[in-house]
């Protein structure tokens, strides 16, 4: 139980130190900040990068007998994974000032794969569904308000798209006004998104005060 007690106390002190950020820069915040950065970087280095990515996805596949356990240890090694391993090692040439260009091959490979994926997936997963969402019947039989709402939706999508035109000035009776309507829609949308988020943020603060007042100080149940 002592571990739990120490953890709670350490947690409460760190929490208070972090809250002092709101007042001004001070030694308490500076201490918590540096500790937090150090601990989280250490956690990502050992636990995430090594134990959760490198070990299961690379080492355990190339040398299953050493790094995998259970039935996975008898799997045939996948030597093809040496390629990404080598590409990863090329990145370390950044340490040398003369040979740092070698790491460009890795950068080029990463850029190629990620842009290739982005071209197709952004079209499939976001572009097409969003266009589809904007296509709604303007007349909903017997529901005047529904028809109006659908009109609002279509007009909004089209006018906001006009706002994003770069090759024409937002001027003129048609173009200027449509783009202006687009800005109105954007503003309403930003306000709504802002307002909706307030709640979640306050919930988080409630969670923090619950920790301080109940787990640490036992003032409330």
């Amino acid at each position, binding site marked *: 139980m002592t571990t739990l007690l120490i953890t709670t106390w350490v947690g409460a002190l760190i929490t208070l130190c972090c809250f002092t*950020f709101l007042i001004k820069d001070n030694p308490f915040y500076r201490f918590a900040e540096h500790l937090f950065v150090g601990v*989280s970087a250490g956690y*990502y280095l050992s636990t995430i990068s090594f134990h959760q990515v490198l070990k299961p996805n690379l080492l355990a596949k190339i040398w299953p007998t050493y790094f995998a356990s259970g039935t996975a240890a008898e799997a045939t090694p996948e030597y093809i994974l040496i390629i990404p391993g080598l590409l990863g090692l090329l990145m370390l040439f950044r340490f040398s000032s003369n040979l740092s260009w070698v790491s460009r091959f890795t950068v080029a490979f990463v850029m190629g794969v990620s842009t290739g994926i982005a071209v197709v997936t952004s079209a499939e997963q976001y572009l097409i569904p969003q266009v589809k969402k904007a*296509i709604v*019947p303007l007349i909903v039989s017997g529901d005047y308000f529904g028809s109006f709402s659908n009109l609002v939706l279509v007009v909004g999508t089209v006018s906001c*798209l006009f706002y994003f035109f770069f090759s*024409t000035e937002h001027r003129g009776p048609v173009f200027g006004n449509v783009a202006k309507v687009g800005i109105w829609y*954007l503003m309403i949308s930003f306000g709504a998104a802002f307002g909706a988020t307030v709640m979640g943020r306050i919930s988080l603060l409630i969670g923090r005060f619950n920790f301080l007042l109940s787990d640490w100080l036992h003032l409330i149940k």
Partner: protein
Amino acid sequence: MSIFRRPPRSFVPILALILCALSMSFLMADQTVESTVTEHRQGEAALCCSDHGTTEELTAKPAAEAKPWFAKERKTVLIIIVLLLLFVSYFTFHAQRKELFIRRISGLSALEDAVGRATEMGRGVMYIPGIMDMDDIQTIAGVTIMGHVAKKTAEYDAAFYAPMTRSFVMSVAQEIVKQAYLEKGRLDAFRPDRINYLTDDQFGFVAGVGGIMMREKPAACFYLGTFYAESLILAETGNSVGAIQIAGTAEPSQIPFFVAACDYTLIGEELFAASAYLSKNPREVGSLKGQDMLKLVIIAVTVIGTLLVTISETEFGKGLTPLTESFMQYLK
């Protein structure tokens, strides 16, 4: 391989035409097999409802008969990509002959003033290219704009801080900033230790950046890239130290916070237009014009689709229903 150093004028359109022809042939080929495949599909669906046990063996059959080389359910994506490629390549060549117009983007026009102001005040400039890794296109856009900002800080001799949350982005950013300082002949002023890695953790990074901001008090802050919950913490801290702030992200959930707390915000696509806007490179401007044309096509599709759906809902438009259905099928 000089193609890659300076692509010949004919390279991109030829490629686009080839892709176009290929995609058309795929689509045509689809039409012929489609009827047989749909029958199988219907059979499958019926079986799924009636009996779960036997579906497996029956679904295996049609797959063995017709294994298409082309994923036909993805044809709309192909159409979009080919269209964009055609538009972009056309306007790229157009741009080389005649200068194309780009509307003013106030956030980007303010960029130089912000750096200048920082120099006057004797304070630094802070740049954060988002919190995602290099496989995110927004990060790539952010890092590209970083090169332009770094050129300005090299010119004005202002301190350039760029704390990083991803090591990969850090190493790419160091290279870009170094190149910018080299181009301006100020390699002596380049400080790689100010483009430093903090931690991969989202909030650990925010804590670190917040601390740096409070202590170094940068006079200009740039947030261009992918941002999540940290957007407002960064923007409010920057505001409290009195910095001019220019933000840009395509993350719809975070734009409102930047709009509320920053002086200028690049909304969505404007982030990607920034590189063309700042470099005035005709090829990049041409691609922007190409994007605009595709946007026009999308608007047309939306309007036509809406009209079709509306008409086929009414009593007069029953005849249009098959047309509407085949139209909507492309948007699946």
